[in-house]
């Protein structure tokens, strides 16, 4: 698997990453929200024992305990999409196991005991699922999963019952956003049991025209069916986005080019940038690259900027606590730097 933030490959420009998440619980042990910190840490221990059983896993993976870390370090993991907001919330008893490439994250004591997440660059759900399944089988060797013949894998919330699988794809949809088609898209997608969320998943607003499409229903379908349905929906969204981009270029060529070059100009020379503005400008530049208008900026650079300009990661990079205004100054500086603008 390839880390989506660093990959140079671009098998599909509109899709940034594909994510697979499996929810698993240990039989009879109360779910994390009903565990004391002490009991929660026992669960962490149990999972580690089941996971680090070979030289390979001990070599390629490392545990991170949220209760040991500073706030900003934990938040930065969240900004990198390695952990969820809920895991962050449970920091007094939660941990995660991370691989070297930062594509696999096994979250412990999230809403469920286990949330196994695999994120792969591009439109590649199968590869991510294969990886998740392999690790799931490894864990099952040693852990007594909560499983019911009829209800499948049991989860803290009935919305995750059955397969426990949430598959999602992150898409860049600037043309559909410009054409105000996102609402009708949301309606259509909901009708086929899918949902659209923002850059940071559940409960997050869309920023920088980035959207995550994922399955809503987890019970009564096979893993393969869930993944295939999502692929079908995403493929259609991609086709629509491409069509909208063509239309925009046909009807508003100069306006679009102007929007794109202006965005790049601002990013290369602004002195103050808040994260919302930065994300929107980055989206315009990304569209420029994807449409072949801008050639001297790499999408890879923009991908890593998505994370680097977030508050906690930015403060880690500059290794200082920053006020909001200082953040805007440093954010602008970092972006100018990365894009080779005014120093």
């Amino acid at each position, binding site marked *: 698997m390839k880390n989506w933030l660093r990959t140079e490959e671009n098998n599909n420009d509109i899709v940034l990453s594909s994510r697979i998440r499996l929810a698993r619980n240990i039989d009879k042990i109360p779910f994390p929200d009903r565990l004391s910190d002490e009991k929660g840490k026992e669960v962490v221990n149990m999972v580690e024992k089941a996971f680090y059983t070979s030289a390979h896993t001990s070599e390629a993976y490392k545990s991170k305990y949220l209760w040991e870390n500073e706030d900003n370090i934990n938040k930065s993991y969240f900004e990198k999409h390695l952990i969820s907001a809920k895991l962050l919330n449970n920091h007094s008893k939660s941990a995660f196991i991370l691989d070297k490439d930062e594509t696999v994250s096994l979250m412990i004591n999230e809403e469920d005991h286990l949330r196994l997440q695999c994120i792969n660059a591009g439109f590649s759900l199968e590869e991510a699922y294969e990886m998740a399944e392999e690790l799931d089988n490894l864990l099952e060797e040693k852990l007594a999963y909560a499983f019911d*013949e009829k209800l499948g894998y049991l989860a803290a919330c*009935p919305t995750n019952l059955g397969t426990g699988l949430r598959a999602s794809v992150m898409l860049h949809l600037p043309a559909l956003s410009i054409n105000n088609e996102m609402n009708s898209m949301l309606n259509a997608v909901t009708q086929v049991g899918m949902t659209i969320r923002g850059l940071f998943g559940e409960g997050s607003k869309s920023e920088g025209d980035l959207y995550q499409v994922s399955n809503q229903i987890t019970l009564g379908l096979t893993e393969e069916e869930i993944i295939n349905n999502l692929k079908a929906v995403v493929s259609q969204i991609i086709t629509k986005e491409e069509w909208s981009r063509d239309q925009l270029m046909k009807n508003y060529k100069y306006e679009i080019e102007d929007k794109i070059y202006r965005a790049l100009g601002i990013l290369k020379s602004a002195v103050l940038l808040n994260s919302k503005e930065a994300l929107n400008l980055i989206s315009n530049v990304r569209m420029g690259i994807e449409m072949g208008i801008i050639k001297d900026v790499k999408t890879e650079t923009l991908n890593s900027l998505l994370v680097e300009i977030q508050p906690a990661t930015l403060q880690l990079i500059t290794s200082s606590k920053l006020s909001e205004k200082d953040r805007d100054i440093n954010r602008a500086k970092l972006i100018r730097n990365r894009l080779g603008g005014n120093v």
Partner: protein
Amino acid sequence: MICENCGKNEANVHLTQIINGQKQELNICENCARDIEGFQSPFSFQNILSGIMDYMSPAVQTVKSYEVSCKNCGTSYNDFKKTGFLGCSECYESFTPYINTVIKRVQGNTLHAGKIPQKLGKGIIERRKFTNLKEDLKKAIANEEFEKAAQIRDEIKSYKEGEEGGEA
């Protein structure tokens, strides 16, 4: 569709209730739904769910749903109603008549079709086979098909032996 309760208004609430294991479906209007205790406008997801649960609890005579709590972790059904979260894997067992309605609502399905864990699943498949054999045996005896019954008995016997051998 016209409301099945008052027969006047357009029905826009679909109600599925399971009382003592009997499933009943109703299509009623918003006014009638409001008369049913526990329903409140506006129709948020949580309200609808709670409403259904309140509505069905008086009909289940022996147990009051509020007071049911999980033997394993102590989570009460009321806790689940409030938060939408269960306390442990055993809660599903403890709250079965009630929870199935919720699952059906949320998922549209109640039967798992996906992956079965390799190790745990083995037991499930074998157990299923064993129960089927025992049922077949009963049937065969009832039908006085003694030859067949003897065959099944042998199968069960060899199955049991195999199991014991496996454990040794």
